């Protein structure tokens, strides 16, 4: 069968089971958009290429399947750089196809030419510049393989226009030949046995669970491990939902804005069983003072994470799900099997005491009648049907989202953790809703973030993707404001955004959304209930929240996790 390169690309995507692509056409990618008309693949026309990338990420995070974006060359490729960097940091499998100028024009500074593979080299797991149409099926097969196996991540395929037009003989590769890419999947049995023994001997163990548990679909295995060992779990920002918040042994989020118990239980632990987490600086605080008495078991599929920040006593390279399963078996075998697990009741009693004394707290009935953002998130969570997906931007609202939403299912928290990309929420939510049309999708967003990517609500309206946006409008770049208040003597520099410029209700309506405005606590629940009933178009609910509200607890930058600032409701530092 003779096909053009463009036809081969679309057919290759179909072979990979691609149902939907997010994109925006342009000059160099024009040939690809023609066969797309005849393909069953759904194309979602975004309003900015950054939106296409984040939608692909939201789709991937919600479904555990690779998200696909197609954009043209030059500025389109550079516009999708941010989502690539974001996906690289958060290990999100996305495949980005970029158009490129014709091979004969590469290097001549042609119109809309950019060195896309060069620019994206350090923010992709791998990228390819296609030189001949016959390479397309092989490269697409390799691209999906690399994106979705090992530590997942973004890949990019740069496709010159003349290659898209070139004729080729269709084939589909029966195997992948990448001699330099063989991820280690299975943990070393001896290390797993040693880990099992260490777990039995620990008196103050904590399961430090990261996003890798969600990526490797290890949540069931994790549940079984907890059931067997009774070890409490902290779920990092990337792992919210990996273990249900409703479980009594779930301690919630650790780190800079984690709750006191999650932070302190790690800090006082004698064994951190680290599963698919990477000792991020937002989790550890000052590394030299982090969990000083803890031994470390570190399980990760990426060997480079082991020992990168904190030396592991037992490093295990492998797929987290498989290693947990092996670990559960190893607990009953060999030396570990002969040992009786240490009694954890004193440890758990200590944890309960912390939970009782230092819960998450905010002013429930403020005398001035202002609307507290935490109350909005709490109400949203309580009124959302089970399994609702929450997407988020980056900043205060993200932390409140993570703190006050009850996460009980994996793949229900779609956020930008590592890169901290403002504006992620709206396209992230749209991608998630496209991937999981059966689920309600809310986004919690800030006014700063909203203004970065709001145009994608036009995409959502025109494509009938009924996402719901809870816009926490505090008229400020709130997190920056918080730092300026706390660390720069309340000298507010360029953080004020205004509550009513733009008029968010008018703007949302102009974009084809239903828009509601909420200014007092009594209006919160009715507005959310109303939004929950709308299922044929996007909804924006603007909540005018108290701009003075800060995120607590907080471990200041550079401090150790022993110095948790619980905020004014607890009388400050502990």
């Amino acid at each position, binding site marked *: 069968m003779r096909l053009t390169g463009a036809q081969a690309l679309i057919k290759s995507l179909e072979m990979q089971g691609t149902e939907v692509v997010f994109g925006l056409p342009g000059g160099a990618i024009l040939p690809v958009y023609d066969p797309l008309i005849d393909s069953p693949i759904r194309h979602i026309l975004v309003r900015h290429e950054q939106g296409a990338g984040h939608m692909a990420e939201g789709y991937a995070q919600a479904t555990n399947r690779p998200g696909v974006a197609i954009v043209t060359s030059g500025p389109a490729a550079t516009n999708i750089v941010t989502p690539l960097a974001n996906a690289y940091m958060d290990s999100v499998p996305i495949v980005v196809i970029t158009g490129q100028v014709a091979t004969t024009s590469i290097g001549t500074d042609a119109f809309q030419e950019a060195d896309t*593979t*060069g620019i994206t*080299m*350090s923010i992709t*797991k*791998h990228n390819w*510049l296609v030189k001949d149409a016959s390479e397309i099926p092989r490269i697409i097969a390799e691209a999906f393989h*690399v994106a979705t*196996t*090992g*530590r997942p991540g973004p890949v990019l395929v740069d496709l010159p226009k003349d290659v898209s037009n070139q004729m080729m003989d269709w084939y589909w590769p029966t195997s992948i030949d*990448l*001699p*330099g*890419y*063989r*991820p*280690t999947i299975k943990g070393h049995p001896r290390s797993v046995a040693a880990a099992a023994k260490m777990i039995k001997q620990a008196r103050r163990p904590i399961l430090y669970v990261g996003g890798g548990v969600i990526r490797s679909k290890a949540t069931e295995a994790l549940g079984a491990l907890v059931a067997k060992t009774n070890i409490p779990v902290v779920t990092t920002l990337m792992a919210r939902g990996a273990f249900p918040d409703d479980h009594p042994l779930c301690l919630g989020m650790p780190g800079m804005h984690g709750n006191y118990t999650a932070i302190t239980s790690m800090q006082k632990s004698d064994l951190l069983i680290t599963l698919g987490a990477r000792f991020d600086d937002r989790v550890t605080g000052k590394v030299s003072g982090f969990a000083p008495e803890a031994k470390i078991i570190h399980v990760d*599929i*990426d*060997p*480079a994470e*082991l*020992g*990168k920040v904190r030396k592991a006593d037992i490093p295990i*390279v492998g797929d987290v799900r498989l290693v947990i399963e092996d670990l559960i078996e190893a607990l009953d075998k060999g030396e570990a099997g002969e040992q009786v697990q240490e009694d954890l009741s004193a440890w758990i009693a200590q944890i309960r005491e912390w939970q009782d004394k230092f819960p998450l707290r905010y002013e429930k009935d403020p005398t001035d009648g202002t609307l507290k953002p935490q109350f909005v998130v709490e109400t949203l969570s309580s009124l959302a049907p089970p399994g609702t997906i929450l997407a988020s931007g980056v900043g205060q609202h993200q932390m409140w989202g993570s703190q006050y939403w009850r996460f009980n299912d994996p793949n229900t928290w779609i956020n930008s953790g590592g890169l901290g990309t403002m504006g992620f929420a709206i396209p992230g939510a749209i991608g998630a809703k496209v991937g999981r049309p059966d689920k309600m999708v809310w986004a919690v967003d800030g006014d700063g973030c909203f203004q970065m990517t709001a145009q994608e609500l036009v995409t959502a309206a025109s494509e009938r993707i009924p996402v719901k946006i809870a816009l926490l409008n505090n008229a400020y770049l709130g997190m920056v404001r918080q730092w300026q208040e706390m660390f720069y003597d309340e000298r507010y520099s360029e953080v004020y955004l205004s509550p009513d410029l733009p008029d968010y209700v008018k703007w949302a309506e102009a974009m084809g959304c239903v828009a509601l405005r909420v200014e007092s606590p009594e209006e919160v629940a009715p507005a959310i209930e109303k939004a929950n009933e709308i299922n044929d178009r996007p909804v924006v609910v603007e909540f005018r929240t108290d701009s003075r509200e800060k995120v607590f607890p907080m471990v200041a930058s550079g401090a150790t996790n022993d110095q948790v600032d619980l905020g004014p409701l607890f009388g400050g530092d502990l």
Partner: protein
Amino acid sequence: MTSFGTSVIPMSMPGGKNTSGVSHHVLSVLVENKAGVLARVAQLFSRRGYNIYSLAVAPTDDENFSRLTVVVDLESATLEQITKQLHKLINVIKITEINPLEAVQQELLLAIVSTDAQSRSQILELADIFGAKVLDVGLERLTLALADSPEKLDDFTELIKGFGIVEIQRTGRVALAKLSRSGSRSGITKGKAS
């Protein structure tokens, strides 16, 4: 990556350190012979904040592969990290850390030295002692070539400096593990992972 004039290239012992507190490690990296691979390796070093001290690249006997010999300046604690990061590059097949004590190392030096009637014979004598070849002869200049261990090149450079070096170029070094005489293997070969 070429060094001009100053020949101060302290050769560290394995695990030892030179005066500036960094160690030299030799990594022999087998990569796929594809466009852009060198850029990927070089960018990885720069992106992670590691300094390449010298670099030599050439295809192997199998034209599908190239070998990079990278001499890196770093603390030994970070060597493991850079090796692991290098392994993550899809085009990297195998990395061997070569222990300088258990390896033969060679580097090529080309130097243009100024001469006059008096110094010419002295320079030629030095060249003879070191086994350097005369590649080119001008009225007031000589071009010499010396292929030897980096230490010998340092010594040679030091000695010809007195005559006036017009220009000097060195390649990065290439290295191979010493042949086994006792059955013990040299170098550490690490497995490939994601």
